[in-house]
């Protein structure tokens, strides 16, 4: 009778040891049916033969990375067959290169189930370990200990998590299989132990108080609690002692709340109500006409106010000779409360510099003060304002024009043209010309800078940008003439 090789893996460092042994067996071409595995000498094996496994051979064995990750979890499963199942898939991988890409393979599905079970148990261990303080509270390194009963062999892979989290204290986690000890920054493992007697910890009473009071008796969902915190964990979770009472009294508490008649407000409520409203930080952005900002924020002349963040008022010196009017704030302007700060605004700034116009001397504003948009997925998509919205907001633009009394208005795009001249038609034909606007102030017409951003063809974009530069230069020259007159 042929002796079946048997691999006994150590209780600590199981993952690396399995990997090494599996490599060795694979390079020796030992088929899965000819080998047995166990973790520690005590774990049940189907064949109790003692043939040692072959010595590892040097040589590159290429294994897909996702198998390595899968194996690194599955080895902690308590199923005695886990090593054999892993090795069987590893064996198949020699010839079936696409195996890991098949989400429906039966052997892999079984391993993935084990992986999930280990993952869940690891998660529960990290969640449900409850430390008690076992040392002097004032010592430079405080000491804590816990007892836990995991469903799989998950203490070793979980230990680094506790080491990362609780590095400034010493701790010990005891399980029936293994004990992890962390002292002065070093983790060591020992054989499993009986449940230790841990001293009472006053913090546990506070924790139970918190647990009792964060529970809402009006929304009992016991099944959900049990799904996430199965009863098998309860005996090591101090807070579960409160659960029976919480459940027993929930209905009475809710009924009492419902039946209680409304009470009179406490004596201090009236005094507080009589106090002047507390100061609130005004919403105004650092624009120069913040007086209008508050009024514009309160505006409900059209429905746009309801969904925008805020009104975006004009910005610039109140004695500006040049006032430029865009269409409406965009996404960034809506957030910041300032005009022309988004992508179109940045392009506009650049072109203003090219044409020798000093932005700080221009009053910049929009025909419509609130951002109009639709939602697509999780983005806001700009929508042009309609005639009604432009006309509702014209009142505000008129306020700004009356305050600033510029020598020249520049209408950027059709919406501004509509607000300032009454017509949005044929803007490409009218660009570069001057028409009469509010209070008889001349209006120079051109396109909106966002028009340039929307051109996909770089050549067309450069051509149009140059035309826009020429328009703005012409507007500046026109202003110079007006100023000289």
């Amino acid at each position, binding site marked *: 009778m042929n002796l079946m090789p048997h691999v006994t893996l150590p209780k600590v460092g199981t993952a690396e040891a399995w990997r090494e042994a599996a490599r060795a067996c694979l390079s020796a071409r030992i088929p899965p049916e000819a080998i047995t595995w166990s973790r520690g000498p005590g774990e049940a094996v189907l064949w109790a033969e003692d043939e040692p496994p072959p010595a590892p051979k040097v040589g590159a064995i290429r294994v897909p990375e996702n198998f390595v990750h899968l194996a690194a979890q599955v080895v902690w499963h308590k199923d005695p067959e886990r090593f054999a199942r892993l090795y069987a898939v590893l064996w198949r991988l020699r010839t079936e290169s696409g195996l890991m*890409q098949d*989400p*429906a393979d*039966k052997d892999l599905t079984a391993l993935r189930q084990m992986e999930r079970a280990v993952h869940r148990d690891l*998660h529960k261990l*990290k*969640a*449900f370990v409850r*430390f*008690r*303080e076992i040392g002097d509270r004032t010592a430079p390194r405080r000491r804590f200990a*816990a007892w836990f009963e995991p469903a799989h062999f998950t203490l070793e892979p979980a230990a680094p*998590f506790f080491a*990362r*989290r*609780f*590095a*400034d204290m010493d701790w010990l986690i005891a399980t029936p299989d293994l004990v992890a000890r962390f002292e002065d*920054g070093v983790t060591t493992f020992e054989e499993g132990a009986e449940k230790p007697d841990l001293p009472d910890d006053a*913090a*546990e009473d506070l*924790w139970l108080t*918190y*647990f009792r*009071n*964060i*529970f*809402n*008796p*009006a*929304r*009992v*969902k016991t099944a959900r*609690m049990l799904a996430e*915190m199965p009863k098998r964990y309860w005996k090591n*979770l101090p807070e579960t002692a409160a659960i029976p009472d919480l459940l027993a009294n*929930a209905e009475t508490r*809710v009924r009492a*709340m*419902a039946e*209680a008649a*409304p*009470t009179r*407000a*406490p004596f201090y409520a009236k005094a*507080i109500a009589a106090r002047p409203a*507390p*100061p*609130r*930080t005004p*919403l105004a952005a650092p624009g120069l006409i913040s007086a209008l900002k508050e009024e514009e924020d309160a505006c409900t002349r059209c429905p746009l106010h*309801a969904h*925008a*963040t*805020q009104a975006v008022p004009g910005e610039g010196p109140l004695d500006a000779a040049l006032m430029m009017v865009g269409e409406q704030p965009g996404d960034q302007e*809506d*957030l910041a409360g300032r005009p022309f700060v988004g992508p179109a605004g940045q392009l506009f700034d650049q072109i203003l510099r090219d044409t020798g116009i000093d932005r700080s001397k221009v009053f910049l504003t929009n025909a419509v003060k609130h951002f109009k948009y639709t*939602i697509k*997925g*999780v983005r806001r998509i700009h929508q042009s304002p309609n005639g009604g919205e432009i006309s509702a907001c014209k009142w505000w633009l008129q306020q700004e024009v009356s305050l600033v009394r510029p020598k020249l208005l520049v209408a950027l795009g059709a919406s501004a043209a509509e607000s300032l001249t009454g017509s949005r038609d044929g803007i490409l034909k009218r660009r570069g010309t001057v028409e009469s606007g509010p209070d008889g102030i001349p209006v120079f017409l051109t396109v909106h800078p966002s028009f340039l951003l929307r051109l996909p063809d770089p050549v067309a974009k450069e051509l149009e940008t140059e035309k826009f530069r020429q328009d703005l230069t012409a507007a500046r020259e026109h202003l110079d003439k007006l100023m000289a007159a």
Partner: protein
Amino acid sequence: MNVMSAPNLQEKLAILSDAARYDASCASSGTSRRDSRDGKGLGSTDGNGICHSFTPDGRCVSLLKILMTNFCIFDCAYCVNRVSSNVQRARFTPEEVVTLTLEFYRRNYIEGLFLSSGIIRSPDDTMRDMVRIVRTLREEHDFRGYIHLKTIPGADPALVAEAGLYADRLSVNIELPTEQSLADFAPEKKPAEIRKHMADIRLGREAASDRSLQGTAAPRFAPAGQSTQMIVGADATNDATILQQSARLYGSYGLKRVYYSAFSPIPDSTAKLPLVTPPLLREHRLYQADWLMRFYEFSPDEIAQDGNLDLQIDPKLAWALRNRQHFPVDVQRAPREMLLRVPGFGTRTVDRVLQTRRHRGLRYDDLLRMGASLKKARPFITLPDWSPGALTDSADLRARFAPEPEQLSLF
């Protein structure tokens, strides 16, 4: 004269966690990775939050969720802490909050702190005190666990900017789905202030993710993002309006989550807002619908076509039943966006289908192994070894899924 002894820590904790239980969020995921292996500080985060316990309401206990104080000068009808309520009041000292957080954390009870507060004196004063607590945790105690700070609308943006340096998540509650409801039930809260606050947080996050020309990272700012909470069932707003509001909030402020909180009985309620059984099923359907908007490319108008969600079946199934002209879907050929609309297919199933069908054909059993819920999917798909026949269009299809009508009971 009413003489009361000052409550001790245990009593304060009872009062101020009782008052905090109406905040739905307990998330502690998605923040930057940190640990304390250098042996100096305490705590770690690795991107995935941990639920350390579960209360019998089925909710996860991940954070120490408390109010700094439940004194409040506002009079919001739905709130247990409104000024006109007679609930017992308490206030933690900053040291008490810090100690509770650290001692709970050391015993592995929690992932960190979720600090909220009633408004005392003014939004600025309240916010300043809260920021002091989180600054102490971070700077004096080198606490590296998770912190969620509920910011106070109307507070100085400079305080919000400071809060963002210490907190993993910032949130500001939208409270109710419409401006009118807010005006009716929370007259001191200003929707415009709330939106402005959310905008400031988004801008703070965007500024922090920009790298300077030298390649140095800006100081971190709320790396786990911002969220909000909306109370459902206190006012008469329908689900379509709620979901449209959520879609706008996600789109406008880059929120990580909108939490829906079924209006739940509170002690000492007001005559203005009678207590009802909390609409838990509706809340559940809203979460499902919210999920469909964020991960399945559904728009709010498609999901809540008739104004309100179907309580008996989930919103994806309800959509499929209303739109049977699109089904059955050929699993071997359908594009991703159509596979995502199949009831019983999650995003993971869809990814696995797409991956596998590049290599080989798919069978019914494959889908089972991939984690699809075929009981739901069956009428809506075809495979080489499965055809739903007349099932897709059968008149009683809805009845097969809807539970038997029963009296919905709270217990």
